[in-house]
């Protein structure tokens, strides 16, 4: 039998200690992705450390006016939290576009950004996949790559990160708080997920035995003009082909004071380009300007055949999401 040991950690130190006992340990919270991957033999942990009850089931306001989301709060509780809905509606919108009500009731905030890619080949152990089995090759590059990346790819992997929440967190400049054997540290969202390069088996920059404890949101800037636009093959329970988290700050003349645009479904990590956002600053919030920003954001995009359409789709989606962000109040 593929025996798995399981322990329920009582606090974060206990969790880290349990996890460090074997190099085949995995933290488990909601389990909505890990259990699937175990069933198809893609992940084969020997030990599961349950981190649901280690004291990170809170959402609290920070002294600086920001908000801290405990890692073990469920996606549903986070998305429907009054403070989140009022001050970080972009995040709420992104989270509610994801998965299904049942999954959101189980999935946690820490687990959400730890999701693994949905690449067909990653899930099928009969095929080659560098992310699953380093060095075995990438079946997607010459295979069916409709859902795959157009930005930041490598010759070893063209997988995309599937999370919607992470895209909004990236747009909002969130910070991931982690704790490990050598103490606590904070990783900005920008540096949390990584590009595949020649190590596609590594999704993120978490060090050995580190656990996510919370996610910090800076003081709210984008509660007025925001939009999470998710384009997919089915209106519910489908991963994004392209998603856009768009957030704007506008002056009274509808000129852009600040802009944040993060893309999902296009890369191994939520994709942002500060230069493209800078292009909009001080300019009128018009479709023509949005198109300029979109063109710049996608200037290095490359298709692999089946996913060529994503480049044009992303361009249009960026413009639409920014337009929706401008008009958000009118639709409320």
């Amino acid at each position, binding site marked *: *039998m*593929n025996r798995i040991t399981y322990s329920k950690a009582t606090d974060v130190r206990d969790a880290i200690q349990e996890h460090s006992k074997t190099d085949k340990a995995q933290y488990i919270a909601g389990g909505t992705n890990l259990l699937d991957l175990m069933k*198809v*033999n893609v992940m084969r942990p020997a030990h599961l450390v349950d981190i649901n009850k280690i004291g990170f089931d809170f959402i609290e306001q920070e002294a600086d006016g920001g908000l801290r989301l405990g890692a073990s709060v469920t996606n549903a509780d986070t998305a429907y939290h009054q403070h989140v809905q009022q001050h970080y509606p972009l995040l709420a919108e992104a989270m509610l576009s994801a998965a299904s009500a049942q999954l959101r009731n189980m999935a946690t905030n820490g687990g959400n950004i730890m999701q693994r890619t*949905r690449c*067909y*080949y990653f*899930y*099928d152990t*009969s*095929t080659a996949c560098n992310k699953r089995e380093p060095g075995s090759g990438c*079946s997607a590059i*010459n*295979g*069916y790559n*409709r859902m795959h990346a157009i930005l930041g790819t490598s010759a070893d992997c063209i997988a995309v990160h599937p999370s919607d929440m992470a895209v909004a967190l990236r747009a909002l400049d969130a910070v991931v708080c982690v704790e490990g054997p050598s103490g606590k540290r904070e990783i900005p969202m920008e540096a949390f997920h990584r590009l595949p390069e020649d190590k596609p088996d590594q999704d993120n920059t978490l060090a050995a035995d580190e656990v996510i404890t919370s996610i910090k949101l800076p003081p709210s800037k984008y509660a007025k003009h925001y939009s999470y636009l998710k*384009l997919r*093959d*089915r*209106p*519910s*329970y*489908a*991963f994004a*082909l392209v998603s856009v988290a768009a957030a704007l700050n506008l002056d009274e003349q509808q000129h852009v004071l600040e802009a944040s645009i993060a893309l999902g479904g296009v890369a191994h990590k939520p994709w942002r380009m500060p230069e493209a956002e800078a292009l909009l600053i001080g300019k009128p919030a018009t479709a023509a300007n949005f198109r300029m920003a979109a063109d710049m954001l996608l200037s290095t995009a490359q298709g692999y055949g089946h996913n060529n*359409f994503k480049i*044009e*789709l992303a361009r*249009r*989606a960026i*413009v*639409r999401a920014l337009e929706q962000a401008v008009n958000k109040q009118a639709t409320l």
Partner: protein
Amino acid sequence: MKSGYIGAAVNRVDGYLKVRGEAKYAAEYQAEQLCYGVVVSSSIAKGKIKTLDASKALALDGVLQVFSHENRTSLPWFDRSYKDEDQPPGSPFRPFYSNEIQFNMQPIALVVAESFELARYAATLIDVEYKAVDFNADFLNSQEKAYEAKKGKSGWKPPKSRGNASKALKHADVLVEATYFHPAEHHNPLELHASTVVVEADDTFTVYDKTQGVFNSQQYLMNIFGLSKAEVHVKAPYIGGAFGSGLRPQYQLFMAFMAAKALKRSVRVVLTRQQMFSFGHRPMTTQQLSLAASSKGKLVGIKHEAIAETSQFEEYTENVVNWSGMLYDCPDVDLSYKLLKLDTYTPLDMRAPGGATGVYAFEAAIDELACKAGVDPLQFRLLNYAEQEQNEKLPFSSKELKACYAIAADKFGWARRNPIPGQLREGDNLLGVGMATGVWEAQQQQVMAKAKLSPDGQLVVSCGTADIGTGTYTVMSQIAAETLGLPIEDVSFLLGDSDLPMAPLQGGSWTASSVGPAVLSVCEGLKEKLLKEAAGLPHSGFKGAKVEEVLFKDGMLCLKGDPSVQLSIAALMKQRNLAILEHQTASMPDPKQSQYGKYTHSAVFVEVKVDAELGNVQVSRVVVAVAAGRILNPKTARSQVLGGVVWGISMALEEESVMDKQYGRFINHDLAEYHVAVNADVHDIEVIFVEEEDDVINPLGVKGLGEIGIVGVPAAISNAIYNATGKRLRALPFTLDKLLE
């Protein structure tokens, strides 16, 4: 004499059992010392197994055996021993027969262990070395290898051409030429394919199988394992959806049975969701259509050529192009149906096989032709309405399609359609409307049924048919209760058991129209017997009475002409000292049926909203009118059609099994990536049943509803997308990328 059950919206008689989880499915039966089998699937598409090393699995405590080609029990040589009722011509796949790999995900071993978890783990320890050879799974790039289908499976009709279509096309005022593509699709019933084989104390076998035909599974096992009927008892009382996937015995049945027989232990085998993509599917099909009309919209020529995939070992055929010859009045028709052999598993009937595929392309092309001719698409269909079945030139047994068009068009508001595409905008969306015709065969098969009446007035009617969720239990109970004048609570209908009277597979929309008449007939036979018994009672007053003169109501017999002459069934049976009154009959189609065209029709009207920039399509409204003869139960009937329409939406917008050409393997093999419609896809759907009388089709006048709901829906959606956007999409499914230009 009506007690009002036939035609009434009776609730499902098995509804309570199902919602309380008391209806048991094949994988839910327990047995003493049950052991569990897990299937190992091939990871190559073609070649040979060089070595299959099961030693690591066998070394585990609790692993009982690993079956494969190396240690299988003796199996018959001839193809005929592996045949089944839905088998195409060719050599059926034989699990474990040799080391040859014929398709990717071919089952190559069965690991049997004391627990499911152990078997699943042990299955990951089987080391297989293959000698892989080149294969072809590239349908679109090997079209030139297609050949004309010569023989087909039962129900397949070689398409018949007539007149001179090429000439008609050459000289026509309006011509449309277009190629359509239909991807592979898998059935994906919610219930996974499963078999539990129980070894009984007397060494016989009771098999709980997910099947649409218990006799088919029984005969298959008898033939392969050399057993008598008495040794193999197959049961399938409840099926969690099948849609055609249960028409042929699937390999888990073979494997569970071989293991149980060899180990003398009860065995259960359940496939994984991924393995549900390892057997039959709706075939990839390309269709080339050339249609011609006069400037006034009279259809003058039809050319329809289809190329469909099949496996290397069987020639699966379905009626794809035949509909184009029969639907409209047209003198010159050229039809052709070709097959293309790939290194995949053989396709398998899926809801409206051939019809869902062929009518889609044909009805989309008809819309293209009507629009090009400047004729309203509904008007176009009325202009070319066939008063006679066109392929065989036979009169229709009934055809209320005109009423379907009229009623559905009115409900839908078709008259408000803007014929110029791309004109209606609502926010970011373009709005469009489209319509199509649906058609399916109405057939009757030979069926046997038995009825048993007890002195307490309880009636048990039985027939070895199936209920795959269609409502068979309910409508058969209704027919029996009404015929014998009993409260429906006193009637039980038994099915899904090979000890019951013979019935064919449940498929082809023929269950209500075949089992229904058998139930009617056996209950009428029982009436005769009751009356004979009553007439035999001294002074009962029934002597000499004919059955038409007697009213059967509320458990009583009563002379219509003299209501004072009455007798309860209970009293009658007591006085005649009858412990049970029993009758069995066979019902079969009247030979006169062959002189008619027998079809169910529908008219489908659809409204779509298409995001002008981003391309996503929403089917915002569907109105469908169906002419299917007599409706036995409007509630279960509506559910059947709703299910078909939802699947039509799913087929139009989402469903596609993607063949990876590097591996020859369907790669999106789970329900996260093989998309089927969800609640958010489904908006307003209105189902209307049009009155239709038919005294040819069978004594009940019922035509069947299993398939008609899906036919026509994808075409109507494609036509509505054109009306919304001006774009003709000709490859299913209509995902947003195809609308980005």
